[in-house]
């Protein structure tokens, strides 16, 4: 009989890799430390700056949503280390399949801030060209993107490339059949794909313990895929773990699974009210493990964050916020007739007829209340 494993809810469990303690001290980890040997002070400062910048994206977008400039926003507050650490382990050729919550990842990968916001404003389905920056559009169907990442990685094998693909997923997503099938295919074809699971302890109102009775990363070995649990609020540990997975994948070692144990400090989205389902104690407990505070403490303890350094980090965050705000509020509305665009690559008798009729309708029509139709026909 094979053994049962422990409760996934347990927070300070052994087996979670860490390189910076919550109070900001460096920790040695036999497996992971070698992967960040080259990460010097400047690099750590860079990671810190990244995290501050995306936290600012988060607060600015939350504010814009309250002001009615965005339709919705899914906060990433508390998950900055997971997003920054994982993204910074990748090369630009590596293809990313994110969820709706990886807006920090999107920014760091090179999507424009206005582009990112266009989706949350309801103006566009994508804010960037996936092929231009090797980043798929944010996936809303829970788990679906893990199959896309796996297929992409199968393609890399067929082409003999040493790039990798990465699928972001949440703890809730691990219950979906698609995620399982991804692991089966990834193992079967030894695809260079990284399953990067941010266990932020909640799937909307459902605690991770409802999805899993054993640590999530513990599912991977059953497929013959190595699994790694890492402190998701520790940017260095996440960077190292992802580098470990990338190195494996690039050298033909196949798929791997990372569980970044983190916490969603904010609401599920701006439409959610987490006070209905979780207490303040939990929030306070995790507040003490803030991913940004601990890097800051580390930097300060090493005398690496002087006033100038902090000012530069703040300046970048301010600039990001300003650009985001400006890009959002000046965004034009999409043209009415664009609803017919890009459904097909070629002509389509039925849709073309509908387009023609609606064009005629719009052109010839003044609504009963006399208002003008917004936007131009395109």
């Amino acid at each position, binding site marked *: 009989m094979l053994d049962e494993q422990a409760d996934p809810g347990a927070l300070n469990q052994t087996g979670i890799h860490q390189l910076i303690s919550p109070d900001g001290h460096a920790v040695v980890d036999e497996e992971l430390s070698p992967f960040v040997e080259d990460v010097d002070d400047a690099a750590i400062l860079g990671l810190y700056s990244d995290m501050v910048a995306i936290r600012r994206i988060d607060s600015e977008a939350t504010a814009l949503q309250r002001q009615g400039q965005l*339709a919705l926003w899914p906060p990433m507050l508390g998950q900055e280390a997971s997003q920054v650490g994982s993204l910074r382990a990748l090369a630009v050729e590596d293809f990313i399949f994110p969820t709706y919550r990886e807006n920090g990842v999107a920014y760091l990968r090179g999507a424009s801030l206005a582009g990112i916001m266009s989706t949350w404003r309801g103006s566009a389905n994508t804010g960037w060209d996936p092929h231009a920056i090797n980043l798929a559009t944010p996936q809303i*169907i*829970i788990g679906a993107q893990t199959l896309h990442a796996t297929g992409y990685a199968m393609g890399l094998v067929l082409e003999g490339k040493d790039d990798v693909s990465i699928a972001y997923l949440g703890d*809730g997503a691990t219950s979906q059949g698609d995620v399982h099938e991804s692991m089966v295919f990834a193992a079967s074809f030894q695809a260079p794909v990284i399953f990067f699971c941010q266990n932020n302890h909640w799937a909307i109102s459902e605690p991770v313990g409802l999805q899993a009775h054993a640590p999530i990363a513990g599912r991977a070995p059953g497929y013959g895929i190595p699994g790694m649990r890492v402190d998701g609020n520790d940017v260095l540990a996440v960077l190292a773990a992802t580098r470990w997975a990338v190195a494996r994948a690039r050298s033909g070692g196949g798929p791997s699974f990372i569980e970044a144990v983190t916490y969603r400090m904010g609401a599920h989205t701006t439409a959610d009210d987490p006070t209905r389902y979780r207490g303040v104690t939990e929030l306070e407990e995790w507040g003490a493990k803030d991913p940004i505070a601990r890097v800051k403490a580390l930097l300060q303890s090493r005398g690496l964050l002087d006033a100038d350094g902090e000012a530069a980090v703040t300046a970048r965050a301010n600039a990001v916020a300003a650009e985001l705000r400006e890009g959002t509020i000046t965004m034009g509305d999409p043209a009415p*007739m664009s609803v017919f665009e890009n459904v097909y690559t070629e002509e389509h008798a039925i849709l073309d007829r509908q387009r023609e009729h609606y064009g*005629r309708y719009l052109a*010839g029509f003044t609504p009963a209340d006399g208002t003008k139709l917004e936007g131009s026909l395109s």
Partner: protein
Amino acid sequence: MSKLTLTQAINAGLRKSMEEDPKVILMGEDIGTLGGVFRVTDGLMKDFGSHRVIDTPLAESAIIGTAVGLAYRGFRPVCEIQFDGFIYPAFDQIVSQVAKLHMRTHGQVRMPLTIRVPFGGGIGSPEHHSESPEGYFVHTSGLRVISVSNPQDAYTMLRQAIKCDDPVLFFEPKRRYHTKGEVDLDADLSRAPAMGASRVVSAGTDVTLVTYGPLVPTALDAARAAADEGISIEVIDLRSLSPLDYGPIEESVRRTGRLVVTHEASQTLGLGAEIVAGITERCFNYLEAAPVRVTGFDIPYPPSKLEKHHLPDLDRMLDGVDRVLGRPNSASGL
């Protein structure tokens, strides 16, 4: 009589059904502690316990598949699919199991599942949150499909659906969740209109306008606007999408000779296709003009800033009415 919103009416219908029958249980994502993302199940876990209001893991195929097993065991599961666009992972279980098991077992195993689906657009949501998938289920033999448009029907028809021994897809027009209406909570179910019956909601003589769910209020607005211009529209709320109840539509079209069908779902093989075909077969000699469909376009649901250009509104309905009347002011001039 109580004045309730649509959500409150559904909540009351669930509550009543659970009180009446201990075999009724609720299952879904976030329906328990949170009370559902639309608060439809608010308070029910507190009152009935977590064994009857079950927060499930995040997996739609499993929600339906385990409900099948529970039905085997004699339960009457009411499953919530959080949004229309999340029903597809459960499609296989619905089409190959739920719909077929009664026939497969020669009637020996019943599948009294109710699958609640908040559906349709108009609330400014992101992708996959505004779909109208009802056509897929209407095309699937073995299921019943209903869509409600007002609190009273929601309360009554949900109770009927839960009592029904066939599986029922129950489509809730999410953009009407806050619509208020009088609901008789003590009405005798045996005297309520049958779950399969459509209903004339506004009498008229010139054009028959058929719709369901979210567009019923819009169609009524259209009828009022048309009345100002001297056109008399009869509005029919389908209520049951499968089986379709042709009775009132036939009766109406025999008088008006003119039919317009409107829905949010895409046109090709949307409900309008079936109704136009069915009425043409049944009332051919009474039709004075080709029936007209006013529907969503054959496109994936657009970003929310564009949804008003996809969803039929009052103006597009009136344009359809003009068309079926052959009036020159029809702007689209099909």
